[in-house]
């Protein structure tokens, strides 16, 4: 079966099993010789982190276990998605503490990527609100992990890209909400400097993010829409349908070019007429703008796309980001919806991506020119002490990875201790020299 990540690059012919019970997972891992593979939930990591010769799908692990309506503490299987959680809990007045830009990620995937959201600057990552989880390690044992129990395995698994074992279930906190709507404020920033200032001034805002037009140069470099959000308190807990159009087939390769993207970006920026706009939007368009378009990854054509997300330390932010945006603008290879965000402090997890500074995420159609450009960007990111997000990555070099994630050796020691090496691996882990 041909399998790829959400970016549809690269792909691999894999054997996918869909176990329904613990004993079936165990026999998948240890019941036969030569299992070398990885768990996969919704397959929404972009590159090659959830693909391997052997794939264990968590699709059938989709049950809730328990919910404490006093503390907001939820236990569920690792295959439950954020979307499932929203369906069940928004009507009851609860919302995930941290949600990434798509709701179609599984809880297991959220842990493996230690995902962040538009509120990272205040509340940290998904795993910062994770109380505990159970994981099946290479010999088939099921271990409980939390910040106090098997702590080494906990901090390696959170953000560990599935390379320590199969997460079976998790217990984590939801936040109380009074409405399913978000009060959104949008500011127009003429350039990167203005945008950074807005992040500084609004450091106390619940949610913040900026959409950057990467094709602008000179005085307009980094022209952006800066958006703030907070949970509305009055509008009620209504559900809305999030099923918009679907992209029915692969767009021809020529469809996305620098003219069409430039036009889209211009329209997107001009749609906001005034310097500042306030409105009330449902949580779906605010948090998950692209989930409304099913199969949007087909826009990039049959060859797929790569997403590139990096973080630069706070003090290097403006200079480094300017340099990178200049390079992208000059190449003309920019994408729509490049997303800029200010991160808060890092956590203790060994391979978690966020640290205090600025992060930018961009999509590129895959071709040789783009792959070369990304190598050049890697060098700049490395020089400024930054790193690239593993969940988006399909092409980074081992050297870039090891420089950006200095705790990789400690990570490998934990994997060795729990027998993960030679058992749990992905195309990505092989490429990055993790085995």
């Amino acid at each position: 079966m041909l399998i790829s990540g959400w970016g549809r690059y690269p792909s691999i012919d894999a054997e996918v099993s869909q176990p329904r019970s613990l004993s079936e997972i165990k026999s998948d891992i240890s019941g036969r010789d030569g299992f070398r593979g990885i768990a996969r939930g919704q397959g929404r990591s972009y590159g090659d982190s959830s693909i391997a010769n052997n794939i264990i799908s968590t699709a059938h692990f989709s049950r809730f276990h328990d919910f404490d309506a006093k503390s907001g503490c939820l236990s569920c299987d690792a295959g439950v998605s954020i979307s499932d959680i929203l369906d069940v809990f928004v009507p009851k007045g609860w919302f995930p503490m941290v949600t990434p830009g798509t709701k179609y990620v599984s809880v297991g995937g959220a842990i493996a990527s230690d995902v962040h959201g538009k509120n990272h600057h205040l509340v940290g990552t998904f795993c910062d609100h994770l109380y505990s989880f159970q994981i099946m390690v290479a010999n088939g044992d099921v271990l409980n992990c939390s910040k106090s129990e098997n702590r080494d395995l906990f901090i390696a698994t959170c953000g560990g890209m599935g390379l320590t074992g199969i997460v079976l279930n998790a217990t984590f906190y939801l936040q109380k909400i009074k409405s399913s709507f978000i009060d959104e404020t949008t500011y127009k920033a003429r350039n990167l400097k203005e945008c950074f200032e807005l992040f500084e001034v609004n450091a106390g805002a619940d949610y913040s993010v900026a959409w950057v037009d990467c094709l602008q140069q000179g005085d307009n470099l980094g022209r952006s829409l800066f958006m703030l959000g907070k949970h509305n308190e009055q509008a009620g807990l209504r559900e809305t349908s999030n099923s918009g159009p679907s992209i029915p087939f692969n767009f021809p390769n020529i469809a996305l070019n620098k003219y069409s993207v430039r036009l889209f970006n211009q329209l997107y920026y001009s749609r906001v007429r005034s310097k500042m706009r306030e409105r009330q939007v449902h949580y779906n368009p605010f948090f998950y703008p692209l989930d409304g378009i099913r199969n949007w990854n087909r826009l990039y054509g049959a060859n797929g796309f790569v997403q590139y997300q990096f973080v630069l330390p706070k003090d290097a932010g403006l200079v480094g980001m300017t340099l990178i945006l200049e390079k992208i603008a000059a190449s003309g290879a920019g994408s729509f919806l490049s997303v800029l965000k200010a991160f808060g402090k890092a956590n203790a997890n060994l391979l978690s991506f966020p640290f205090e500074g600025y992060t930018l995420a961009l999509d590129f159609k895959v071709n040789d020119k783009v792959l070369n450009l990304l190598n050049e960007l890697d060098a700049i990111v490395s020089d400024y002490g930054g790193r690239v997000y593993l969940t988006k990555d399909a092409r980074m070099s081992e050297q870039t990875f090891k420089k950006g994630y200095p705790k990789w050796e400690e990570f490998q020691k934990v994997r060795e201790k729990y027998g993960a090496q030679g058992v749990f691996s992905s195309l990505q882990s092989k490429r990055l020299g993790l085995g």
Partner: protein
Amino acid sequence: MKKVLIIGATSAIAEATARLFAKRGDKLFLLARNTEKLTVIARDLKVRGAKEVFTGSFDALDMEAHAGLLDSAIAQMEGIDTVLIAHGTLPDQKNCEASAAETLSAMNINALSVISLLTHLGNVFEKQGAGSIAVISSVAGDRGRQSNYVYGAAKGTVSIFLQGLRHRLCKAGVHVLTVKPGFVDTPMTAEFPKGPLWAQPDQIASAIFKALEKKKSVIYTPGFWALIMLIVRLVPNWIFHKTKL
């Protein structure tokens, strides 16, 4: 809030449908053979919003116990609005051809046990003069085919029985729904290679949920099976016998 009894509640289609009942805030009674699995499902449905979830062990072949089991379930829920019968097996056609015992056992579980339940439930619903009876039959019951006619005969029996029951109970205001799914990706069909005609259990579940709300009599799900089965039923024997269906 409705009071819903689900028989064969660990089946993939039943579980997916139960999630929709739970979301509505229904009171549920789950019956199945594997009580360990039932506990896990009950816990999930409770979190999803079910008002209350009862569980009980159920052996389809112990038909003498059916009436007592049903009465006690209805008593514990303090009434019943809807029943969904979803248990069943997919017998191996070749084994059945070689053994009358295999064939009869397949008929017992897929047809006679359902008729046993429906006979008792039919009287309960007729007496109360309201409610819905939904049973999962199959497109396989529409015409006997060489590759799968034992299962088809059992499901065909159920479909015809339901036709009659519907005719009788409509006078009492009781709704009877026959659900005819096509190929569904469940543990029962784990051994089959899957193609574009295959559906997921949640698609079938939402069709059942809607059909209950709209009080439909017979549904094919996904809907395109109505057309496929119309053709399968109409093809004359001299052509049909040349196929390997």
